[in-house]
């Protein structure tokens, strides 16, 4: 009921204003009645009606014309204060006046409507242009949707504007300007689903949907929404492309604002379309990215598989060839030959074991399950153990080991640090020609332990020094030996688990220097004698 009264009052108000203005002019003219020609009076009334027409619509305009006609006749056409007219030419003048008044009103109102239409069009173009510019600047979907709802709220002076996207059958609020809307409300979801399904706008009463903080109190009305009802508090527009439904654009007017007109609904629909395009574009981009990531991870997986199968099969081939040789019937092996074959089996089993250990370590590093088992050790011992384990690999290379004698006992995971050293030494041997120098040194530097492994091998391309520690990274080179790119990745994982750093430096003529640091214990912690810091 309240709606009806409000509607009437709003409709009646312009009539009151127009009639009041005409009525006000009449007493102002009365004192000059004797000095004014009847024609002058008619012209003054026409001016007033023109002014009224400039600010009102057809109804009030015509009402004002009729009132002016009545006042003119009653007050200014003799005999005064009657509707009778003495002179016949005055009768003609009166009706000509009425005719002109109505025509002027119509013309002025039509002209004004056209001007306003042109202005509105201009504004609309400006708004859309503004929006498209803003959308071009935004990278992500959320930013684009936010730009859209911000603009919509601004342009229509709304309380709230939101985009709800349908994800897995549920509507989620992806972007909101103003008060958030209670999307959990089953009514809103139902209306949104209806609007999206039918691809038609829908209205919904505020009493059925809570806007936080709660809006006007009111008895819950029956759940009724009507197609396109704009006088409802919430107005929903479908956001959809021709292929797929995406969501809804929800707008809430400020309390007491007039309903949206055709013009505004059309503009809103344009905004909803823009939102649909933005969403579709970003969905396509996302899908494309996902496909690319999948393809890349597939590539990575097959690279890993071929590298691992190569690395695993190579030592297996030596083992199997040696073992099947020894198993052959009717061959009298010399002690030397038998020993050679058995040594090959022994060494290749170790190699296989190192590879499997590295693979396991890598999976632990990847899975975040790596816990160093710290104990007090001497780094020299670890270096000795690593050199011992790589004796076969480094056979034929000139190995120089230098360990500074001022190094204190330190806390580290012995097995893992040995593994790091073994991997670095193995790597140095693998990538450099037999007979070349491999050096390993350990010393104190800037309060840390620094271990340096240097080789004279094929090196690393400039700029890729850090990438060699990525898993499955392999140097692209003509002479590159086989390998899976696991060893150095394990080194990095282990060193970082000790809170140390590892990095590589290119030297001249293809030499490569890998350095890693391990934290030295604070002096107070050290069970050994205080280090001779002054010596450096």
């Amino acid at each position, binding site marked *: 009921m309240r709606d009806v009264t409000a509607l009437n009052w709003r409709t009646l108000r312009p009539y009151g204003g127009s009639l009041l203005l005409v009525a006000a002019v009449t007493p102002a003219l009365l004192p000059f009645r004797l000095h004014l020609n009847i024609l002058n009076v008619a012209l003054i009334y026409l001016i007033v009606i023109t002014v009224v027409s400039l600010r009102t619509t057809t109804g009030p305009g015509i009402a004002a014309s009729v009132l002016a006609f009545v006042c003119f006749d009653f007050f200014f056409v003799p005999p005064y204060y009657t509707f009778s007219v003495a002179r016949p030419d005055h009768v003609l003048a009166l009706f000509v006046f009425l005719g002109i008044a109505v025509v002027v009103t119509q013309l002025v109102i039509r002209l004004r409507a056209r001007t306003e239409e042109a202005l509105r069009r201009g504004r609309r173009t400006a708004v859309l242009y503004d929006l498209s510019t803003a959308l071009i600047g935004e990278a992500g979907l959320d930013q684009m949707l936010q730009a859209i709802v911000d603009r919509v709220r601004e342009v229509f002076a709304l309380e709230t504007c939101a985009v709800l996207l349908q994800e897995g059958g549920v509507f989620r609020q992806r972007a909101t300007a103003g008060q958030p809307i209670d999307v959990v409300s089953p009514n809103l979801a139902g209306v949104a689903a209806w609007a999206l399904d039918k691809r038609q706008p829908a209205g919904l009463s505020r009493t059925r949907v809570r806007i936080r903080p709660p809006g006007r109190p009111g008895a819950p009305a029956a759940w009724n929404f009507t197609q396109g009802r704009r006088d409802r508090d919430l107005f929903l527009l479908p956001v959809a492309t021709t292929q797929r439904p995406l969501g809804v654009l929800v707008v809430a007017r400020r309390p007491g604002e007039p309903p949206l007109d055709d013009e505004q609904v059309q503009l809103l629909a344009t905004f909803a379309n823009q939102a649909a395009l933005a969403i579709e574009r970003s969905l396509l981009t996302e899908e494309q990215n996902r496909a690319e990531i999948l393809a890349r991870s597939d590539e990575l997986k097959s690279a890993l598989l071929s590298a691992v*199968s*190569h690395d695993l*099969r*190579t*030592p*297996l*081939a*030596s*083992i*199997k*060839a*040696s073992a*099947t*040789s020894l*198993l*052959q019937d009717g*061959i009298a*092996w010399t002690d030397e*030959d038998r020993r*050679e*074959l058995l040594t*090959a089996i022994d*060494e*290749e089993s170790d190699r296989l074991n190192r590879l499997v250990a590295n693979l396991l370590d890598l999976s632990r590093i990847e899975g975040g399950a790596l816990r160093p088992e710290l104990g007090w050790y001497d780094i020299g011992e670890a270096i000795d153990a690593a050199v011992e384990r790589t004796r076969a690999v480094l056979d034929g290379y000139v190995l120089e080991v230098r360990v500074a004698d001022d190094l204190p006992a330190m806390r580290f995971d012995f097995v893992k640090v040995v593994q790091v050293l073994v991997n670095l030494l193995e790597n140095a041997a693998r990538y450099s020609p037999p007979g070349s120098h491999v050096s390993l040194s350990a010393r104190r530097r800037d309060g840390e332990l620094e271990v340096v492994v240097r080789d004279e091998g094929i090196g690393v391309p400039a700029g890729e020094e850090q990438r060699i520690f990525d898993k499955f990274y392999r140097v692209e080179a*003509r*002479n*590159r*030996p*086989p390998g899976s790119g696991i060893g150095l990745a394990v080194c990095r994982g282990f060193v970082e688990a000790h809170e140390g750093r590892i990095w590589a430096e290119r030297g001249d003529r293809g030499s490569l220097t890998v350095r890693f640091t391990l934290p030295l214990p604070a002096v107070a912690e050290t069970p050994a004698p205080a280090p001779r810091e002054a010596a450096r």
Partner: protein
Amino acid sequence: MGARVLIVDDEPQIRRALRVGLQANGFDVEVAANGETALDYAAGHPPDVLILDLGLPDVDGVEVVRQIREWSALPIIILSVRGAERDKVVALDAGADDYLTKPFGMDELLARIRVALRRTAGQARGEPVLEFGDLRIDLAARLVTRAGHEVHLTPTEYDLLRELATNAGKVLTHGMLLTRVWGPASADATNYLRVYVNQLRHKIEPNPAHPRLILTEPGVGYRFRADVAG
């Protein structure tokens, strides 16, 4: 025997195992660690058999095969961890005689080496008559008999059989057989080949469902069995 074998592999351990194993079986063994050395060696003292790894540090093994095939027909046996059909076909099409995937047993390698050596010996003699068990192929008369009875073959079947039998022991890829029997335009028509091999098996195999003469190398091609008791 004393046949000369050149082993080309960049893995020192496999070189060592093969050298010891083959020497003990009476072969005269040379080793090379990369493709360049192998090519030099092969040119200087051509071996009787070349055992070649595909993953060499300097040149790809397939390239080594191509270069050697420019001037020599010496048997080449590929030893590789690459087990995919595509890799095998590429190496065989380049001219390799056989392909063994690592890891392999020494007996298997020795058998392949013997087949390769026997084949070159047979080719050198240029025998007009080939015998495999009770199957006899008279190349001069274009006559095929099984246990003394003539086997009637269409011209295409005969050409296919001749191609397989003269290369007994060697894997022939689909592409090679199609090119040689049907011509280069048919190199991709694997279905022709399948049909004719099937027909041929029905005419010469004692049990076509379990072929003993024309063996399928899955995804690669066919091999005519060389060591059928004769």
